[in-house]
């Protein structure tokens, strides 16, 4: 009988996690009895209703525009960061990354603090200008700007990651016969395409599923109608699931395309190497610094507005910080626990995926589905699935948050760690096989210790995703265990502006501290 390898076990872990965390809750929704059940509405009924189909198209357009905006900013910056970056470029890039680690809702709040009659910009651009800006913000244009600011760094990140994985010998060879711009266009760019597309796809999916920002800015989007099918005056989870199917299929199709591209791109990945300095001259500095400058300014302005409000407006100060202490602790403890859980799951699963890509891709499908499913739908499925007397201990504790967040975001750390493991050349594993017979020990020494920076990075990524989550957690967080984003959103109505701003500022400070900590940790344990 053939022995099951560590990679095989890993794929099994991914499949089981996906089934338990995502497939069963979605099944619970699909089988929801009665009028609200899935049988009450076909997924294609969306296209029979002109208003709904129009809304779906508008939302797809908004998500596409967000992805396009993110690509325009993210690709040049990502390539530059991937190739080489000076101190100024890195500093600007860190500022640009900050909104990605925060709930987009917070960026929208910051933008709202800048515009309007009482906005901070009123003194600079005048009353009329501030009101025009406010009208621009409280419309589809505002949602687009907020989402581009929040999600563009994702494209930067994936592009830079893929550029860094290019075998530098190929670039060196190209530079011998071509100019730097030509080498960049013919060698670097084609190999970065899977990263660019991955970033674009993630941005599209996240922008399409966003509920909190359009609701704050009073813009009707398709995700909101899915959400309202779950409650308004007729609770219909099955119908909400049915309405989620068309957009999920669309994204799934693009994801399949990506798997194909990924498989093609993987052939070029060798040892992680720094690209030759000469290639830098191929990256147009003006475009990069222009894009980075705009992105950094767009990130810092709303966050600055929140900080100013926290210190100057009524309701801020120490009392506001004290009142948010429980939310602060909830945010840290739940995010850390979920990140730990996801990292421990991702290590074997991503190794399996990296070693056996086709099987791994199939095994990770349920988790991809969880990521693509609108939070409200997935969250309701989790409630239906876990809220039983037999599972009450889990449902009443913080573990339900771990389960919910893992179902929603599990795919991303798995995928990110798989990219890290892809750097491990087969020759290393073969060399280790000569010295050590135990597959587990080989796995720990080669895969785990050889990629400690990637493992830490994935822990940090998971922590960030959980820390910034709002749409998922708001559906089932245990009473009294609200997190900072939830508290910011629930107190926003009618609270003194200083109180809301201080709570939001706490989230910003916590995120910055975490980013610094993660930066230092990955530096300490960087893979040689």
């Amino acid at each position, binding site marked *: 009988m053939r022995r099951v390898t560590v990679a095989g076990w890993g794929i099994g872990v991914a499949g089981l996690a996906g089934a338990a965390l995502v497939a069963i809750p979605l099944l619970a929704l699909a089988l929801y009895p009665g009028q609200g059940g899935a049988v009450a509405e076909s997924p294609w009924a969306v296209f029979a209703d002109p208003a709904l189909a129009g809304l779906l198209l508008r939302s797809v357009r908004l998500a596409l525009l967000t992805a396009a905006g993110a690509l325009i900013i993210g690709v040049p910056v990502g390539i530059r960061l991937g190739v080489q970056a000076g101190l100024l470029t890195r500093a600007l890039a860190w500022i640009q990354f900050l909104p990605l680690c925060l709930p987009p809702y917070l960026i929208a709040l910051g933008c709202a603090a800048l515009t309007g009659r009482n906005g901070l910009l009123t003194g600079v651009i005048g009353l009329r200008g501030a009101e025009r800006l406010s009208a621009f913000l409280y419309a589809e244009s505002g949602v687009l700007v907020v989402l581009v600011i929040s999600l563009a760094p994702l494209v930067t990140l994936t592009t830079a990651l893929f550029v860094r994985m290019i075998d530098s010998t190929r670039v060196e060879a190209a530079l011998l016969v071509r100019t730097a711009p030509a080498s960049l266009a013919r060698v670097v760019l084609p190999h970065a395409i899977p990263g660019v597309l991955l970033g674009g796809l993630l941005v599209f999916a996240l922008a399409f599923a966003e509920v909190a920002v359009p609701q704050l800015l009073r813009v009707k989007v398709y995700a909101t109608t899915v959400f*309202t099918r779950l*409650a*308004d005056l007729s609770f219909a*989870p099955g119908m909400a699931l049915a309405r989620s199917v068309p957009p999920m299929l669309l994204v799934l199709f693009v994801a399949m395309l990506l798997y194909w591209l990924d498989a093609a791109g993987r052939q070029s990945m060798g040892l992680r190497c720094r690209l030759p300095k000469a290639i830098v001259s191929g990256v147009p500095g003006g475009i990069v610094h222009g894009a980075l400058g705009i992105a950094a300014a767009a990130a810092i302005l709303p966050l600055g507005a929140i900080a100013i409000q926290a210190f100057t407006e009524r309701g801020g100060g120490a009392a506001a910080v004290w009142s948010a202490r429980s939310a602060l602790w909830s945010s840290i403890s739940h995010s850390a626990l979920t990140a*730990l859980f996801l990292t421990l799951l991702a290590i074997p699963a991503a190794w399996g995926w990296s070693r056996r890509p086709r099987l791994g891709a199939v095994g990770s499908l349920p988790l991809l589905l969880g990521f693509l499913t609108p939070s409200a739908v997935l969250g309701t499925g989790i409630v239906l699935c876990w809220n039983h007397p037999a599972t009450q201990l889990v449902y009443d504790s913080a573990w339900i948050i771990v389960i919910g967040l893992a179902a929603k975001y599990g795919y991303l750390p798995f995928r990110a760690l798989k990219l890290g493991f892809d750097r491990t050349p087969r020759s290393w594993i073969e060399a280790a096989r000569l010295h050590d017979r135990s597959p587990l020990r080989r796995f720990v020494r080669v895969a785990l210790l050889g990629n400690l920076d990637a493992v830490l990075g994935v822990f940090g990524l998971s922590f960030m995703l959980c820390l910034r989550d709002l749409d998922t957690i708001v559906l089932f967080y245990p009473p*009294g265990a*609200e997190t900072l984003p939830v508290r910011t*959103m629930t107190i*926003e*109505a009618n609270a003194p502006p200083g109180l809301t701003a201080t709570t939001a500022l706490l989230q910003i400070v916590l995120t910055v501290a975490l980013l610094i900590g993660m930066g230092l940790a990955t530096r300490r344990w960087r893979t040689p």
Partner: protein
Amino acid sequence: MHCSTPRLVIGLLIWASLTSSCGRGEPDRTVVVYTSVDQVFSEPVLKKLAEQTGLDVKMVFDTEETKSTGLLNRLVAEANNPRADLFWSGDPVRPQTLIRKGVAASYAPPSASRIPPEFRATDNSWIGFSARARVLLVNTDLVPAEDEPRRVEELASPRFKDKAAIANPAFGTTTMHLAALFSRMGSEKAVAFIDRLKQNGVRIASSNGEVKRLVVAGEVAVGLTDTDDAAVAVRSGAPVRVVYPDADGIGALLMPTVAVLIKGAPHEQNAKRLIDQLASPAVERMLAFADCAQIPLRPEVERPPHVGSAEEIRAMKVDYQRLAEVMEQIHPFLSAWAEGRADSKPPLIQPSP
């Protein structure tokens, strides 16, 4: 020793997460409250009641944006195995969904015996207290006292052309107000009224708070808003006056906050104790003096001068259960109306007596 720190961290995290769960086996003083009353107003009240009663009140709040959906979603989804003990709703209409779906239980708190019967369910499935009202907020610099509007329908009169504002009728209390008008006037007259409003250039603001800001700034002369927003404007010293509309007609719409005991509540006795306290005169007084300036439903409860009394205000006679049904019927039409689309026809609703 090398691994002791990570192990300690992992242990601490697991311990911390487990301790945030409901304590089982201890003398149970827990009560779980889901509330759609603004957190900034409801949290101090619930904390005060927790102090007074010794109950461990665990709270889940709703958001301004999802008030119509968020917590109802959770309550209905959890109906088979409820986690909440009581729902404190910011309005009397949403709980009707819970009642219709069998999520609510009956309870008549002794402390609420003096609440007028129109603000409580005959089957004791809900009890109302501390209300908001829909009012006209008038800018006194732009509208002399003799020209002050007295009825909601006057917003469509030529003297307020391009000078009136309402919040988006697809959201919140404005939907409820229009549902009340549809219910009282019938759909034919109500649709004619809102069409006249549009022809008169009424400004559709993003929220009731925005309506208040427009009136305070003098950008419009009059706006339709809630008493809590109007109270903020009055307290700020802005040149505004509050008019309770239709005092000589159908009356102003009153929207009490409502407490509902959840059927199968895990801590039923504690929930009943808390409802007794919530529906008490002391809480009505607390909410009258708070920034939300809510109107006590008991005439004897002390209130600040800028808060009206339920006795003085001619309250619109409404059946909140019917209002919930009408809201459901007219919502698609109102959304289309607000967006300027003509693809949704108004439902036929007969006027109620």
